[in-house]
């Protein structure tokens, strides 16, 4: 059989024709996001013999990776951080936490158990650097259930608004596409592409893959029951005879929009098995902070970054000491301040670098978590972990992968979206914390009617209301990267930038760590040149 693999451009064009530009855009971003980490084990630096001083701005994962490794290699390191905590967006909100967001509203969390990871919340296995540091810093990890065939796909305009199980939709799509492909082969439509011998193998493969009957049709049968599930499950003794479930009709299924919702599971970054730290993603940020705490000055608001041929001088306000302006000098500065903020600061760099800093918009994103009196999604619907997807503005409901089958209250991530071309996430950012909870309850109750009855409390994060990021992450486009990315990552005199925005894995912790490692590798080479 000779099938030529399509080029990336051809593939995008095919997707564009088949599913419209929205799907094409999603495919493009997912290709960009799916870049594999090239982490090749612990970094080895020549080190500093002369006490070279490095000032790091920002105690997120990029900054603290650099701080940890540079200190180990003998550098004199200091970190300035705006917040009173380290870890940056590697962050978990749990019961007892509270903060004031831009606009003046307080966000509280009163969860008895369970938490919200406002930023990163799941680790793909190819993010090798994250796992290596988790191992090194003893951060315990557990499986994260990304795909659960019992979770739902939901389109408010399809099936009378009734959600469908992921496994049903996927098995049916596979069945019908197999049936159609088999028909095409039998009708000679693929004679030019597939030899007669290969056609037989293809038909045989499709029969098993799609669970087709002897006439290559996808219809209910015992075999379909064994793949798709049962209306009456096989039982014991004299219990009723098993009855296989019945596939959804092809036309309505094709028009339901649910197939598109399945694409997310095909992405490399979402491939099983995925993992998460026990106790929340913030455990990673906490671990980095513990390793470097003595190097960090918290509550420091940077206002100006100067450099000359000999040194870098950073001006900052002590947010606790009545806004007193302080200075810190160093031989080099690694600046991980988000570009949304850095673009507003006075900084001595080239015009080209200034343009690069000002060019990257910050993506909108938000999450809402709700605490319920009982884990009704498990107890009533047998959804144990995983994620349901919907066309409603909440976009998805993620069920916890921890404390499974326990009695008592549980927390779901009840709303999350970040697609930069979609408008819902902007609207969520306009709502007050209380309004976000009410909206998440209203939309979610259309999928889980138990919501209102079981609700206890909620919390949220609207990233454009977070004072220390002004948005969620660097929203690159191919054009912007072409024009500005290299400039942004190169040293400008004694200053170099790092962070997820200086990586090809934006928004992921792996991108931040790799960026931090790459910048210190280059710094170390300069110092030892």
């Amino acid at each position: 059989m000779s099938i030529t693999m399509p080029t990336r451009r051809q593939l995008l064009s095919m997707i564009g024709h088949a599913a419209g530009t929205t799907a094409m855009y999603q495919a493009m971003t997912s290709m960009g996001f799916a870049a594999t980490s090239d982490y090749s084990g612990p970094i080895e630096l020549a080190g500093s013999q002369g006490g070279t001083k490095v000032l790091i701005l920002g105690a997120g994962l990029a900054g603290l990776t650099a701080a940890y490794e540079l200190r180990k290699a003998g550098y004199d390191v200091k970190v300035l951080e705006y917040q009173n905590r380290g870890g940056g967006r590697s962050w978990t909100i749990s019961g007892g936490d509270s903060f004031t967001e831009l606009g003046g509203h307080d966000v509280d969390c009163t969860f008895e158990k369970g938490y919200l990871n406002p930023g990163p919340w799941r680790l793909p296995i190819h993010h090798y650097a994250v796992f290596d540091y988790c191992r090194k810093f003893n951060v315990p990890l557990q499986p994260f259930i990304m795909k659960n065939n019992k979770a739902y796909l939901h389109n408010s305009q399809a099936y009378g608004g009734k959600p469908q199980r992921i496994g049903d939709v996927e098995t049916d799509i596979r069945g019908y596409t197999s049936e159609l492909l088999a028909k095409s082969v039998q009708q000679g439509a693929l004679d030019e592409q597939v030899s007669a011998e290969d056609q037989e193998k293809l038909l045989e493969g499709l029969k098993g893959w799609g669970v087709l009957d002897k006439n290559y049709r996808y219809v209910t049968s015992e075999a379909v029951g064994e793949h798709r599930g049962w209306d009456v499950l096989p039982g014991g003794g004299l219990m009723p005879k098993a009855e296989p479930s019945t596939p959804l009709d092809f036309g309505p299924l094709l028009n339901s929009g649910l197939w598109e919702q399945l694409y997310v599971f095909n992405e490399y970054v979402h491939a099983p098995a995925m993992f998460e730290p026990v106790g929340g993603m913030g455990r990673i940020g906490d671990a980095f902070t513990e390793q470097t705490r003595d190097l960090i000055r918290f509550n420091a608001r940077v206002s100006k970054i100067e450099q000359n041929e000999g040194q870098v001088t950073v001006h900052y306000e002590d947010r606790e000491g009545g806004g007193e302006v302080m200075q810190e000098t160093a031989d080099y500065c690694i600046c991980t301040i988000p570009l949304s903020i850095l673009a507003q600061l006075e900084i001595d760099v080239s015009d080209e670098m200034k343009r690069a800093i000002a060019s990257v918009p910050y993506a909108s994103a938000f999450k809402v978590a709700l605490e319920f009196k009982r884990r009704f999604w498990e107890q009533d619907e047998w959804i144990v972990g995983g994620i349901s997807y919907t066309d409603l503005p909440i976009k998805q409901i993620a069920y916890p992968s921890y404390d499974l089958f326990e009695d008592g209250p549980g927390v779901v991530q009840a709303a999350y979206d970040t697609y930069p071309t979609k408008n819902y996430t902007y609207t969520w950012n306009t709502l007050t914390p209380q309004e976000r909870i009410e909206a998440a309850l209203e939309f979610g109750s259309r999928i889980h009617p138990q919501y209102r009855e079981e609700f206890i409390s909620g919390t949220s994060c609207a990233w454009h209301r977070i004072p220390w990021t002004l948005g969620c992450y660097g929203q690159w486009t191919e054009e912007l990267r072409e024009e500005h990315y290299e400039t942004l990552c190169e040293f400008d005199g004694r200053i170099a930038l790092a962070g997820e925005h200086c990586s090809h894995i934006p928004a992921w912790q792996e991108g931040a760590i790799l960026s931090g490692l790459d910048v210190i590798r280059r710094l170390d080479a300069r110092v030892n040149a």
Partner: protein
Amino acid sequence: MKTAIAACFAMAFAASLAAQDLAETEGYEVELPSQDVATDKARLLEENSPEDSLREIIDRFSTHPDRFTQTSGEALYKTSCMGCHMPDGRGAEGAGHYPPLAGNPKLVSKYFIVTVLLTGYHGMPRFGDQMDDAQIAEVSNYVRTHFGNDYSDAVTAEDVSELR
């Protein structure tokens, strides 16, 4: 036409930058109603039943996932700009700031705000792919005639189309 508008934009932009510099050196202040969260909440509770409040929240979302479906400047402001520039248009301040739209001298030029909306500016995302010409015009006009702003040279959908 496009060149003329671009030139005009550049001049107005330069003028507004100069105005900004002046304003900054002179420490300009704008008088605005105070932003009082508690009062806002009390007012909402007084005027609206819980059902009305919920309806207002749900209705703030567009009916299409890929583009804004609101048509009035006010509704568009409340479902997008307000996230950062806040209900009173005064922006906000953290590690960095969201600039106030209230009394912002850059709004002197109608072409400035349209260009910012179409292409993004500093960390601000672009809205040109989610709002059509009429929507960009409406929301620009809303901002330029509220929050203490009172500019009479309205943006038209044609202006937006020229700048795309």
